[in-house]
């Protein structure tokens, strides 16, 4: 069987082109179904790529059909899409999918979402024996890359870095109280990231009450004015600020009494605003940690460097998995010969047992003879089967298969009506 891949990704195509050919999960299922007649098909469509994976016994213009279909999706941008489309076959296509599943082809190396998207594409696709094995092994490679390396461990964005820092201070975030100061997009993103790790939003404090109320409703909490900040500081564990105020919103004079009342209980202040909202002098207080946007970006930058180092280890895992897939795929060439050989052996065994008049034996004796002869056949054929598969992996499979057919007269069997 031949494996083909036709696709477009963020490496060559800008978002204006990618969005033209992007399809949702239902669209991916429908597109895969279009190609399912006589072949296997799966469509992986994310914000960074749209790829058609196809497998068939004969090429039969399948790749061309896939290209034409993608150009149809692109509509009047078809001319711009043509030069950025890529086509890969067999081992290259398999290696590509394994790299995608491991997050090695992503914009942020090791991002975790892609593994779920590959699984979804597999589940809604029209997979047969080849694509079934390909996608299962791709998911396995993706999981191995994440478990055996630290590629997905470090935060890859400022909100994720803020949440990771909070975990460095508090450990589990469940039950931790987050105070959001300012109704900006960044503070909302950081707050949502903290909530996804178990924290709860205590309040939203904003200068404009209407905006604060709006964000508070979205986050399922209450809103307070900036004059209530000092009181909220006494009980909060994490404060995320992102206002457009020209000066400090949280200055030392305002927070001094609240911080003293905490008796050294940790407080993480995440300042995402420019100009800054939090007076850096607050860091001098016992248990008080102040991080501004530059600090968080430095953490993210270093984390991404770390991910790149881990990516080299993940590449080795993916290459090993791709090699296993290649061995499996080439072994398919000798499967008919192995099946014929086993069928011939079984036919001989059954024939000889029939001639031996086993009815003279008791039931248990007959069962024993059946088991022993089956075991002898299995043991005799085990090593030739293994060697045939090994030879297939080393590209000698077809020669070995022919030799086996000739030696055991399998061709005559196959010709027999």
């Amino acid at each position, binding site marked *: 069987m031949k494996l083909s891949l036709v696709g477009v990704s963020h490496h060559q195509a800008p978002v204006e082109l990618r969005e033209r050919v992007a399809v949702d999960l239902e669209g991916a299922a429908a597109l895969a179904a279009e190609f399912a007649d006589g072949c296997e098909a799966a469509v992986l469509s994310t914000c960074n790529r749209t790829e058609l994976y196809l497998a068939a016994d004969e090429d039969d213009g399948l790749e061309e059909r896939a290209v034409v279909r993608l150009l149809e999706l692109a509509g009047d941008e078809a001319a711009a899409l043509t030069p950025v489309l890529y086509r890969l076959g067999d081992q290259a296509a398999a290696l590509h999918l394994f790299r995608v599943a491991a997050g090695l082809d992503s914009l942020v190396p090791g991002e975790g979402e892609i593994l779920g998207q590959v699984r979804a594409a597999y589940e809604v696709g029209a997979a047969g024996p080849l694509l079934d094995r390909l996608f299962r092994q791709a998911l396995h490679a993706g999981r191995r890359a994440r478990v055996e390396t*630290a590629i997905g461990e470090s935060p890859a964005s400022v909100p994720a870095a803020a949440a*990771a820092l909070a975990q460095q201070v*508090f450990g589990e975030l469940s039950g931790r109280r987050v105070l959001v100061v300012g109704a900006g997009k960044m503070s909302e993103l950081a707050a949502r990231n903290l909530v996804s790790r178990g924290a709860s939003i205590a309040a939203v404090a904003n200068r404009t009450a209407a905006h604060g109320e709006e964000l508070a409703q979205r986050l399922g909490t209450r809103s307070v004015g900036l004059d209530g900040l000092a009181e909220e500081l006494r009980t909060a564990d994490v404060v995320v600020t992102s206002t457009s105020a020209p000066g400090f919103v949280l200055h030392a004079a305002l927070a001094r009494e609240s911080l003293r009342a905490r*008796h*050294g209980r940790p407080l993480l202040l995440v300042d995402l605003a420019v100009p800054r909202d939090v007076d850096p002098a607050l*860091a001098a207080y*016992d248990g008080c*940690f102040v991080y501004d946007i530059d600090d968080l970006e430095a953490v993210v930058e270093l984390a991404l460097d*770390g991910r790149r180092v881990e990516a080299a280890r993940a590449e080795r895992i993916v290459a090993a998995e791709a090699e296993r897939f290649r061995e499996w795929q080439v072994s398919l060439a000798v499967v008919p010969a192995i099946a014929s050989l086993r069928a011939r052996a079984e036919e001989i065994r059954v024939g000889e047992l029939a001639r031996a008049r086993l009815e003279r034996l008791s039931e248990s004796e007959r069962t024993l003879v059946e088991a022993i002869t089956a075991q002898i056949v299995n043991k005799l054929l085990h090593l030739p089967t293994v060697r045939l598969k090994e030879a297939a992996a080393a590209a000698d499979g077809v020669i070995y298969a022919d030799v086996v057919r000739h030696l055991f007269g399998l061709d005559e069997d196959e010709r027999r009506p």
Partner: protein
Amino acid sequence: MAELLVWPALIAYGEAAFAYAGELRGPGLAGRLATWGVRIGWLAQTALLLAQAFDVDGFPWGTWAGALNLFVWLVVGAYLIWGCRPGYRLLGLAVMPLAATLLVAAWVGGGTGTETGGHPGWLSAAHAGLMLAGLAGFTLAAGMAALYLWQERRLKRRDSRLLRLRVPPLESLDRLASRTAAVSLLLLTAGIVAGLASLQWSDVDAAMLVTLGIWTLYASYFVLRREPGLRGRRAAGLLLVGLALIAVVLPITHFAS
């Protein structure tokens, strides 16, 4: 012959101490090697202590060197409860160099041999065992406090490599150090009570007064923690002061008297 068991223990503890330094560069093989070093070393030292217990006529850990040998075993044993978890491996960087050094001192002082020991009676033996267990717990709590201060400093300095190392969260360190100190205080109290049972007023010496001072310091730690809510950097500092008192004053007063 049993004394030879000190060598595998020493080598394994030394290997662990060096390997933990490697863990500072990032989590990985060094940390795993260190953990195995601690496990193997502790098993070897356990075998040594068992051999001493069977071979020696009397109580083998009555001398300062013998007590040090038992003390190291207790410290490493308590560390093993958490130390195998990846997040707590760096605690070994505070504990294992100390353990290896103290075991060398115990060996030099003859505390790992199988010569005849004293006959202090079961109450005094219980007193010594409980006191040593309590002090070992305080040492481990101080190790956690040191790790707390180090990690707190990194957080304060906004070190961008902060997420590279696996270090327990600050609050976990604070809580765990406090719990360890609480258990240790109970053991120390039981040890003091066992000692008082066989005490006469004429026996009171500087070592006993220092021991009471240590008890008072840790008891104050818990009172301050409960009432004004002492925690964080100051609580960690108090645990380190306690260790300094144990490490410097107690041996001088106890074994010199």
